[in-house]
């Protein structure tokens, strides 16, 4: 285990060390101490290692993550795991705005609440939030899955494409072109697999509702010509 104390070591040195790791490295366990809300911690890691961060982090933690598992023992700032490609990011506390934005793969698990714009423009990432999510979440979400055990804020899934949204609690309002959809057997299976992957137990897939695109914004509709 390599322990790096950010009170003593500059952030850039930590990230350079992490960037040098290759597949097959023996240094698979990293611990980061005293993050104190600093930005861009463990951004751009591309190796199958685990980075455990002891405390709250600032903007863009674990952004562009590939392969690595990054665990934040605290809350995280805006843009957590932004554009993640693969691997796993776990936030034990709350996550700020636009967590998992534009993410292409991997799993983002937020054990607390996520703020506004969670999963905005997501493109294949799986996001599981144990608490609530804020307004404008999954805005223009393209593919991937967003699972919320709590409630969703205003304008969920506005202008959504083909991402799947599963919400257990209430939805304050749906955004343009986002509708509730039937939970067919394959969706129960899919959700069940997602919950298992996130290590969430004691929750039934029948407690969730599914939301997705009505596909009415896909093509220009001549009836709307007057609106322009």
């Amino acid at each position, binding site marked *: 285990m390599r322990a790096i104390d950010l009170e003593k070591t500059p952030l850039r040195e930590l990230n350079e060390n992490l960037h040098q790791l290759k597949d097959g490295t023996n240094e698979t366990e990293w611990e980061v101490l005293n993050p104190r*809300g600093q930005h861009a911690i463990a951004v751009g890691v591309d190796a199958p290692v685990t980075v455990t961060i002891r405390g709250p982090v600032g903007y863009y933690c674990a952004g562009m993550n590939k392969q690595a598992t990054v665990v934040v023992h605290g809350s995280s700032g805006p843009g957590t795991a932004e554009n993640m490609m693969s691997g796993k990011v776990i936030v034990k506390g709350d996550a700020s705005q636009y967590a998992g934005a534009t993410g292409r793969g991997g799993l983002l698990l937020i054990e607390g609440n996520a703020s506004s714009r969670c999963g905005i423009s997501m493109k294949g990432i799986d996001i599981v939030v144990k608490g609530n999510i804020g307004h404008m979440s999954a805005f223009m979400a393209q593919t991937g899955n967003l699972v919320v055990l709590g409630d969703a804020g205003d304008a969920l899934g506005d202008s959504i494409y083909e991402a799947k949204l599963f919400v257990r609690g209430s939805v304050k309002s749906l955004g343009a072109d986002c509708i509730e959809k039937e939970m067919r057997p394959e969706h129960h299976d899919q959700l069940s697999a997602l919950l298992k992957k996130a290590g969430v137990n004691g929750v039934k897939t029948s407690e969730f509702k599914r939301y997705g695109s009505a596909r009415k914004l896909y093509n220009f509709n001549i009836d709307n010509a007057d609106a322009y």
Partner: protein
Amino acid sequence: MCGIVGLFIKDKALEPRLGELTAGMLATMCERGPDSAGFAVYGASKAGEAKITLQSPEPDEDFKTLAKVIEGEIGGKVKLDVKSTHAVLLCKDDQIDAIRKAIREKFPRVRIMGVGESIEIYKEVGYPTEVAKQFDLVHMKGTHAIGHTRMATESAVTTLGAHPFSTGSDQCLVHNGSLSNHNNLRRDLKHDGMTFETANDSEVAAAYLTWRMNQGLNLGEALEKSLEDLDGFFTFVVGTKNGFGVVRDPIACKPAVLAETDQYVAFGSEFRALAGLPGIENAKVWEPEPATVYFWER
């Protein structure tokens, strides 16, 4: 961008450390606003006495004679406490109008930054840690303080364009964001007798709240109204003699974090600003909800 910090102390034991804690918080927000910085500190007040914070581009010249000249004009005693380009004039509260008039006539380049029983306001162009050092923030005591680091977007980088803005007795406001209807609103407020020192959008927000509170609303109610009448992006932190308020616009893209313990309520644009506060590990830390007024009063 801009950075905001605020500290509202609940436990008297922490009051001597207000300046030190605020300076620490402000220093973490330099990158968010390197153009200029400012802070309002609510310190000790005595019944019947007032503080007028002044600023001069030529402090050596103006402040050398100011107290004597003012005393001659108003026929009473005042005390002047000079801190770099600023000075706090201590006077009786019934002398304020006469002093305002005397300063306007005798020292036209001296600006009044704030007036009240307990508020002192300091702001200057420069890197925030340098500005804090210039006014010795670290040694200031009091009940609550609000600080700002500015990255200018809507108006010029000048001392008067720095935050906080004070448009009413013991009131101040800092802003992260930009307002889109400030010109219309300024015109309406001018009709109602409000006066403006700058072309800055945040000053309009401050004056708006003062105007609402002059109508008899408390800070919380005035902030509720601001959600109806102000258009644009904003996170505001506002101080009054006894109160401390926070509000974000409905889109809420300007960052904000609040923390509360038995000892204090603290605001930061980011968690970094709060990381050095005592007991932060066990504080309740949360992001203020959009279009929701948060307001504490002692």
